[in-house]
């Protein structure tokens, strides 16, 4: 029977470590900053274990009964911890509070386990053997768990089910203990019944884990996060699901690799192909190099200037193999010049002229970004436009933010430009809009670069047709001193989400 007791120790230790790893990993995934998350969670957990050990001295009689209950409790709490944390992050404001409370509770329970076990078996062995064996198996269990977790559990089972699996093990140890320590137990039948209930609950949880994860992740990022960084300017998150890469800036989807070609072909070609002999192109924003990739399809273009605020953004899209594959190493082309600068002051301080200008900023979600959608900004930009040139503005969705879209069009108009709004369907975004603007009439191009997947000469005229539900609305222009667009945009999206 000796070896069976020590196997319990090993399993219990593994469970304890798994819960800790689950909490640390989840927090790193969801909040970012893994060093901070793991440090604080391990610290809190160890500290709570200390509290548990200290509390163990107040437990006098009925050690075995208490031990079984602790195992069951740990099975439930630890087993459901991962699901609970995901739901907490998705649906509540208090993720951190719940996280650390959970870590504390689990730590205290884990801290109680070993001291109780030691006391339960002390009559059977020499004291020095108890210490040596219990600790040996404790550490072995930890080693096993720490190897299993990254190699097998996370990739195969995912975080939710891994936690539940070890919850089941905890409950299994509880059930097993009712046989192992039967001589020290009272009310054994009731205990076994409780064990079965917990086992059933966790088993059901395992079966339904997919549903729980889906519910939570629908509210967070749908996919695995492969890169997350807080740059000086923004929160940058890259996710991957199979072959779909997605970039989020401050939680706003920027592109999905499955359909970004639709967006970027539509952003660039209707305008650029209509400029006779374009030589110099300017991109404001667009540090992902995807619009650049499209522009490089024009052999006449000699130089492409990319002005993006965030050096981290352009660096990642010049160096990460997954991303350079996506943008065809466009940012590394000798024709491309990357400038990391704030767009408005740069536009003001520069005197160059361009044949085509792409304005591809994040949506006007705040007053700072709103400055880049004003008559003042468009006037400043249009001074850089050559006589035959066009500029194009990503203008949010004419479907979901119809007021905002037509506000941007009106703003360009009042900045003294002739506007040609159009729209395309991008599955991951929905219906999306652009405004092409220049000082002269626009004629859709009659030829396009070869190998485009979406934009075609025949399909072009249809992009400029707006069905009644996206038709023009009379809107005021957006100005620095009014910032009507930011307020409009907020209202537009509020209407959609509620």
């Amino acid at each position, binding site marked *: 029977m000796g070896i069976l007791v020590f196997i319990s120790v090993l399993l219990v230790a593994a469970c304890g470590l798994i819960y800790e790893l689950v909490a640390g990993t989840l927090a790193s995934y969801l909040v970012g900053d893994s060093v901070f998350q793991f440090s604080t969670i391990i610290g809190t957990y160890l500290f709570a274990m200390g509290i548990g050990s200290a509390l163990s001295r107040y437990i006098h009689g009925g050690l075995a009964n208490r031990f079984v209950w602790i195992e069951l409790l740990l099975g439930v709490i630890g087993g459901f911890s991962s699901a609970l944390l995901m739901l907490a992050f998705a649906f509540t404001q208090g993720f951190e509070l719940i996280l650390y409370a959970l870590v504390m509770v689990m730590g205290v329970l884990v801290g109680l386990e070993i001291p109780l076990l030691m006391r339960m078996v002390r009559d059977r062995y020499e004291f020095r053997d108890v210490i040596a064996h219990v600790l040996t198996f404790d550490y072995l269990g930890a080693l096993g768990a720490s190897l299993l977790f990254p190699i097998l559990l996370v990739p195969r089972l995912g975080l939710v089910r891994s936690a539940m699996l070890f919850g089941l093990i905890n409950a299994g140890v509880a059930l097993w203990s009712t046989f192992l320590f039967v001589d020290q137990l009272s009310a054994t039948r009731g205990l076994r019944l409780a064990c079965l209930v917990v086992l059933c609950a966790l088993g059901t949880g395992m079966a339904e884990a997919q549903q729980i994860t889906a519910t939570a992740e629908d509210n967070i990022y749908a996919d695995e996060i492969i890169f997350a960084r807080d740059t000086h*300017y923004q929160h940058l998150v890259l996710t991957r699901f199979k072959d779909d890469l997605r970039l989020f800036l401050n939680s706003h989807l920027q592109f999905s690799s499955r359909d970004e070609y639709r967006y970027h072909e539509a952003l660039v070609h209707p305008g650029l192909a209509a400029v006779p002999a374009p030589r110099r192109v300017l991109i404001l924003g667009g540090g992902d190099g995807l619009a650049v990739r499209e522009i490089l399809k024009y052999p006449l273009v000699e130089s492409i200037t990319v002005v993006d*605020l965030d050096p981290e953004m352009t660096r990642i899209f010049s160096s990460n193999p997954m991303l350079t594959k996506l943008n065809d190493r466009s940012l590394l082309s000798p024709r491309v010049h990357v400038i990391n600068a*704030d*767009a*408005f*002051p740069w536009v*003001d301080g520069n005197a160059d002229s361009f044949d085509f200008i792409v304005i591809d900023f994040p949506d006007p979600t*705040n*007053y*700072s*970004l709103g*400055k*880049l959608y*004003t*008559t*003042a*900004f468009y006037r400043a930009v249009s001074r850089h436009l050559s006589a035959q040139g066009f500029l194009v503005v990503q203008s949010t969705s004419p479907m979901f933010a119809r007021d905002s879209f037509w506000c941007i069009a009106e703003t360009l108009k009042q900045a003294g430009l002739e506007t040609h709004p159009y729209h395309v369907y991008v599955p991951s975004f929905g219906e999306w809009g652009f405004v092409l603007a220049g000082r002269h009439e626009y004629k859709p191009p009659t030829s396009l670069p070869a190998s485009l997947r979406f934009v075609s000469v025949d399909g072009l005229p249809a992009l400029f047709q707006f069905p009644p539900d996206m038709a023009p609305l009379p809107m005021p222009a957006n*100005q*620095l*001193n*009014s*910032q009507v667009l930011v307020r409009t945009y907020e209202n537009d999206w509020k209407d959609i989400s509620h």
Partner: protein
Amino acid sequence: MKLARRRFLGLGSAALAGLFLKGDKRIEGSFVHDSFPRGHLLRGRAGFPPAKRVEKIPVVIVGGGIAGLSAAWRLRKRGFSDFVLLEMSSQPGGNARWGQNEITAYPWAAHYVPVPGPQAAYVRELFEDLGVLKNGQWEERYLAFSPQERLFLYGRWQEGLEPVIGLTPKDRDQFERLENLFREFRQSGSFTVPVELGLSSKFQDLDGISFSDWLRQQGCDSRLLNWYMNYACRDDYGALARDTSAWAGVHYFSSRPPEEKGPLTWPEGNGWITRRLLERVGGNIRTSQMVHRITETRRGASVFAEETEFQAQFVIFAAPTFLAPYLLEDFPPLHDFVYSPWLTANLTLDRYPESRGAEPSWDTVFLDSPTLGYVDAMHQSLRTHVDRTVWTFYWALAEGAPAENRQLLLEKNWAYWKEAILHDLERVHTDIRQCVSRIDILRMGHAMIRPAVGSIFSEERRRLRRRNGRILFANSDLSGISIFEEAQYHGVEAAQKVLGRLHG
């Protein structure tokens, strides 16, 4: 090297102390541009050296604030450049002075001009000259960016300065009633900018009582309404409503159409206008020239500055009028010129404080604070990402007698005012001490004319405006209201008169 045990302990405790003190950021700063050491020399009327040089020049302008600079601008614009402008301090601009650090330019006093109405013809002309008004359109970059103003009250932020949170039906009713009254005054056409164009004896009675008494007569006893009216008086006149003429109180609200455009402003406030004017008239300006005596003769006037006597045909006295009795011989003492003492501070912030529930605005005010809040110099920046900034903090010492407050300004040291400012900000921005790295403070004993009861229709003031000798007065205090448009109006008017008489 062996470290002595004691030394080691010393280092250790220093390191520990360093850890504990980390929260308290060191804040540098000093008083700047103090003018009273020189100004107070005039009170003694003594110790000035006799003139060693004589310069003959047709026109001398005394004072390089907006009034003096505007007179110079008009002279140059009319092709007349045979004049000098004498400025006491090393930097011209007066209440439109500015400063500059590695982050931004920032104002030292006045920081905006309301979009001028049709009557402010000289201001419109100036703004056309400066490219602010082009083909009837105001340059968008010079209009205050949105969001413009925010007020902190009852633990939360609201947009705009007129309280809208926590109003009772009674408050609402009084605000509305007052608004209707102000609209009627506005429609009367008597409350204009510049003041002189509309001034009508029809409303002279208003000048006979205080604004707070007038409000009481209208049955306005709402606490929030009275706070707002007092805020307006402190902001424009440096005085409480009870120390302000009701005519001036009404003028604040009735002289301009309620406009949505937002005022004209620049990172360095009205310092931007000063800079543009200096580009145009800088060649005629002599700074650090303390005028200590002006004598009027039959065919002109002599201005004594430092060791030079300027013999002029005309003198435009654009310095604050209260200096006239100290500079001019046989000038009667003035009774209707009361000035409000002010303090402004420029705070360098290494980061913005956390402020939940409100976007950083151009102008921030706290309900029930004795100060006027602060203006963010980086708000007019075209950048989308701003880390550091400068806040200009305004404090009209309105409570109590001006003379006593002037004494207070003189007596208390920089650390006292620094703490007072931080205490005020800390009530709302609890982490302000971790954000601020520098506080520079400007003390102004006679910052602006106060439109006290009886001062708008004062006979003394009217006489000075109509004065027809060799010395013409031009300071904004002639209107009884210290605003940019008044200073500019009197400066331009004086220049016109001088031109007319020189050629006439």
